[in-house]
C-alpha cells in the first residue's frame, strides 16, 4: 500500500487500538507509544496531502470498496479528502496528537493507562472515519463509533457511579439525535437514489451533484417512505435537513440535546480536551459543512440551524457564569462556542465556522489541558477551593490566561479573527435569519464569554488561596504536559493570519467553502473592529474584575438580588430536571405499563387463563366419572338416546 494512502489514516489508529487491546495491555508505556505513533502517522499521512489540497482548487482524493451490497443498494466504505476534510484532519490529528502526549503525563499513575490509550486510538479511528467518510452511511457508522468511544472514555472511571451515569447519558442523548439523523439519511438517500446513478449509497459528491441539478431541486413533489407521504421540495428539504440536524445537535451538543456534555466532564481531562472540546463535538459542525448542499436551497432549514446555534450560544454562556466546577465552566463555554459555529453554518458561513472550529480547537484544548494541569495539581475541580494558583503554577496560569484571551476574542489572538468573522455574519444576516436572536444574542454572548472566563481565571489563579492545604501541595506539571500546552498556546496566539498570512487565510476559506456557497467578504484587522472587540471584552471582563478581582461588587449580593433568575440559570434552566422528569414519569411509566400489560393481560389473563381454563375444564369433565355404575348406565343410555335422536 502506498504510504500516503488515506486508508492509512484510518488503519493506523485502528491497528493501535486493536494491538493495545489484544496484546500490549500489560505494557502501558508501549501502549502509549503505539497510540501516539498512530496519531503521528495519521498526521503525517494527512499532511502529505496538505499541499495538494491547498494548492489545487478542487483536488479531491477518493477511494472506496463495497462494504455491503444487497438488492441494488451499494454501501461503500471509502474516503473523500477535500478542503473541508483536510482542515478537520489536521485539527483532529494535530490537536489530538498533542493531547495524546499530554495524556502520557496526566494519566501517569492511572491503572487503566493502556486501556486509556486503546480508547483514545479507537476514538481517533472513529473520528477520522467521520472526517474521511465519502457517504452518509459511513458517516453514520463512524458517528456511532465516535459515540461509543466517547461513552467508553466518559465512563473511563467505571468504578464511579457518576461516571457511568454520565456515559450513559451521553450515549442516549446522542442516540436520540441519531434517531433523527438516520431518518434524515433515509429521506435523502431515497430522494437522490435515482439521480445518483451507480454511485454508492449516500455518496456525498453524487448527492451534491444530484441536488445541484435544477431538475431535481424543482421536482414538483418528493415521495417519502415509498410514496406514503409526498412533500413539496421546500418542505422536503427543511424536514430532511432538520432531521439530519438532530444528529448534529446530539453530537455537537446543541440545545436541547446539550445535556450530556457538561456531565461528560466525568471523563479524564485529556478526554474532555480532545473529544468534548476540540474534535468530536466539532463533528457536527463538520457534517453541517458536508451537507450544506442540502441546507443551501432551503432557507427554513438554514434558519433552524442558525437559530438553534445562536440560542445555544447564549443559553450556555448564561449557565457558564454561575458554575464553580472549572471543567463545567469550560464545558458550557464549549457549548456556547459550538453554538457560534452552528449558527455560522446556518448563516451560510461555512468558512467562518470552520475557521472558528480550528482556532477553538487550539485554545479550548489549551484551556482544558490547563484545567487538567490545575486539577492534577490540586486534586479538585471546584474553583472555590482554589485561588492564587498563579504563584504555584505560573506556566499553566499564563497559558490559561492567554487561551482565555483568545477565547474572548481579544485582538490579535486567533479567537479574535474567527469569532469576529462570525459576529460579522450576524450583523447583516440573510433574510431568513433576520431576527433579534441572530442579531443580538451573539454579541451578548460575547460579553458573557468574557465575563465568565475572566471570572474563572480570577477565581482559579488570582486572589488569595482559599484552600491552603491544596494550595501548598500544588506543583507545576511535568514537561510532557506543559510541552503540548506550549504548542497549543502558540497556535492559539498565532492561529489567525499571523500564522498563515491573509492570503492563506483567504485560501483556507476558499477550500472550506463547499461549492455553491456564496462567497462572503470578511473584514481585515482594522481599528474599528478591534475596538469593537475590545469593548465587548472590556464589558465582560470588567464586570468580572469588579466582582471577583477587586471585590467592589459582592457576588453574593448580586446573586441574592437576581433571586429566581439566578437560580434558574444556576440550575441550567432546569432542562436536566425536565428530562429527568420525562424519563421518570413518562418513559418509566410507559415501561411499567407495558410490563404490567405483559404480566397481567398477556401472561396472566390470556396465557395462564387459557391454561387455567383447560385445567378447570379437565376437573369438571373428570367429575362426570362419579364412580356410581348406575350413573354410568344412565350416561350410557343418555348417549344412546342422543345418538338416536340426532340420527333417526
Amino acid at each position, binding site marked *: 500500500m502506498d504510504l500516503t494512502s488515506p486508508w492509512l489514516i484510518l488503519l493506523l489508529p485502528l491497528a493501535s487500538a486493536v494491538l493495545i487491546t489484544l496484546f500490549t495491555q500489560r505494557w502501558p508505556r508501549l501502549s502509549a507509544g503505539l497510540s501516539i505513533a498512530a496519531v503521528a502517522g495519521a498526521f503525517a499521512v494527512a499532511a502529505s496531502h496538505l499541499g495538494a489540497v491547498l494548492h489545487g482548487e478542487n483536488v479531491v482524493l477518493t477511494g472506496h470498496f463495497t462494504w455491503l451490497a444487497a438488492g441494488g443498494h451499494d454501501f461503500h466504505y471509502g474516503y473523500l479528502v477535500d478542503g473541508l476534510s483536510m482542515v478537520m484532519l489536521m485539527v483532529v490529528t494535530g490537536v489530538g496528537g498533542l493531547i495524546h502526549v499530554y495524556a502520557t503525563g496526566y494519566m501517569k499513575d492511572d491503572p487503566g493507562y493502556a486501556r486509556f490509550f486503546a480508547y483514545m486510538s479507537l476514538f481517533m479511528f472513529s473520528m477520522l472515519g467521520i472526517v474521511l467518510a465519502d457517504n452518509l452511511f459511513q458517516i453514520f457508522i463512524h458517528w456511532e463509533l465516535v459515540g461509543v468511544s466517547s461513552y467508553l472514555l466518559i465512563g473511563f472511571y467505571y468504578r464511579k457511579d457518576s461516571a457511568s451515569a454520565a456515559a450513559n447519558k451521553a450515549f442516549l442523548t446522542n442516540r436520540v439525535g441519531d434517531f433523527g439523523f438516520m431518518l434524515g439519511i433515509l429521506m435523502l438517500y431515497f430522494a437522490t437514489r435515482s439521480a445518483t446513478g451507480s454511485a454508492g449509497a449516500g455518496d456525498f459528491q453524487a448527492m451534491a451533484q444530484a441536488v445541484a441539478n435544477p431538475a431535481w431541486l424543482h421536482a414538483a413533489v418528493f415521495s417519502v417512505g415509498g410514496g406514503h407521504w409526498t412533500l413539496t421540495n421546500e418542505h422536503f428539504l427543511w424536514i430532511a435537513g432538520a432531521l439530519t440536524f438532530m444528529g448534529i445537535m446530539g453530537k455537537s451538543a446543541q440545545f436541547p440535546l446539550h445535556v450530556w456534555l457538561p456531565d461528560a466532564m466525568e471523563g479524564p481531562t485529556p478526554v474532555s480536551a480532545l473529544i468534548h472540546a476540540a474534535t468530536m463535538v466539532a463533528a457536527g459542525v463538520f457534517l453541517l459543512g458536508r451537507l450544506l448542499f442540502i441546507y443551501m436551497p432551503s432557507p427554513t432549514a438554514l434558519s433552524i440551524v442558525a437559530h438553534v446555534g445562536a440560542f445555544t450560544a447564549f443559553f450556555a454562556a448564561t449557565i457558564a457564569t454561575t458554575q464553580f466546577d472549572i471543567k463545567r465552566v469550560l464545558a458550557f463555554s464549549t457549548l456556547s462556542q459550538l453554538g457560534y459555529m452552528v449558527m455560522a453554518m446556518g448563516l451560510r458561513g461555512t468558512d467562518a465556522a470552520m475557521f472558528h472550529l480550528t482556532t477553538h480547537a487550539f485554545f479550548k484544548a489549551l484551556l482544558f489541558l490547563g484545567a487538567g494541569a490545575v486539577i492534577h495539581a490540586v486534586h479538585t475541580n471546584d474553583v472555590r477551593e482554589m485561588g492564587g494558583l498563579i504563584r504555584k503554577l505560573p506556566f499553566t496560569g499564563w497559558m490559561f490566561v492567554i487561551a482565555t484571551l483568545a477565547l474572548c476574542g481579544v485582538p490579535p489572538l486567533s479567537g479574535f479573527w474567527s469569532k469576529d468573522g462570525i459576529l460579522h455574519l450576524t450583523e447583516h444576516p440573510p433574510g431568513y435569519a433576520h431576527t433579534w436572536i441572530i442579531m443580538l444574542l451573539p454579541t451578548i454572548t460575547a460579553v458573557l464569554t468574557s465575563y465568565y472566563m475572566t471570572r474563572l481565571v480570577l477565581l482559579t489563579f488570582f486572589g488569595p488561596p482559599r484552600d491552603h492545604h491544596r494550595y501548598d501541595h500544588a506543583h507545576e506539571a511535568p514537561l510532557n504536559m506543559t510541552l503540548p500546552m506550549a504548542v497549543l498556546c502558540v497556535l492559539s496566539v498565532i492561529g489567525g493570519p499571523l500564522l498563515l498570512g491573509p492570503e492563506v487565510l483567504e485560501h483556507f476559506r476558499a477550500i472550506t467553502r463547499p461549492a455553491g456557497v456564496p462567497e462572503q467578504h470578511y473584514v481585515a484587522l482594522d481599528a474599528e473592529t478591534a475596538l469593537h472587540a475590545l469593548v465587548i471584552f472590556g464589558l465582560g471582563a470588567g464586570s468580572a474584575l469588579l466582582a471577583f478581582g477587586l471585590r467592589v461588587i459582592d457576588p453574593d449580593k448580586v446573586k441574592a438580588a437576581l433571586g429566581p433568575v439566578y437560580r434558574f440559570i444556576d440550575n441550567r434552566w432546569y432542562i436536566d430536571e425536565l428530562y429527568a422528569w420525562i424519563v421518570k414519569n413518562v418513559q418509566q411509566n410507559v415501561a411499567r405499563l407495558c410490563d404490567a400489560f405483559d404480566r397481567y393481560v398477556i401472561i396472566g389473563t390470556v396465557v395462564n387463563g387459557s391454561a387455567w381454563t383447560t385445567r378447570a375444564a379437565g376437573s369438571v369433565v373428570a367429575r362426570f366419572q362419579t364412580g356410581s355404575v348406575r350413573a354410568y348406565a*344412565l350416561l350410557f*343410555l*343418555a348417549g*344412546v*338416546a342422543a345418538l*338416536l*335422536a340426532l340420527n*333417526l
Partner: protein
Amino acid sequence: MEALVFWIAAAAMVGFTLLTIAARNPVYSACFMILSFAATAALFVLLDAYLIAAVEVLVYAGAIMVLFLFVIMLVNLRESEHEGLRLNPLMVLAAGTFLALMSRAVKDLGSAVQEAPNALVGTPGTLADTLFSRYAVPFEAVSGLLLAAILGTVVLARRKEDA
C-alpha cells in the same frame, strides 16, 4: 285365537317384567322373572320357534334363573337392604326417548319385512343345518367362551384365602 294368546302372553311378559324390576325382595324378582321367561316361551311358540321356546324354558328359566336364585340365597340380603323402585326423571326421560325413537324405527321397517307372519321357518332341522354350516365359527367360539367362563369363574370362586 292366536291374537288372544298373543295378548295374554304379551301382557304376562310385560307385567312380570315390570314386577321383576319393581319387586323389593330379590327372591320375588327372580320368581317373577321366571314367569316372564315362561310367557316369552309361549310367545316363541306363537312364532313357531319351538326349539327356541324349549331352550328358553330349559336354559333361561331353568338354569340361569336357578343360578340367580342360588346366588340370591347365598348372599341372603337382610330385609332392610331390600330396595324399591327409584324413579329418576333423567332416567325416565332417557328411557322414554329411547322408546319413542324405537317406535319411529318400528314405523319405518323397510322392505325386507312383511307385516304378516311367514310360513314355518324354524324347524329344528333347518336350524341345526344353519347352525353347523354357516354359523360353525360362532358355535365353536361360544364353546370356547363357555370353557373360558367356567375356567375363570372357578378360579375366582375358588380363591378365598388370598389377601
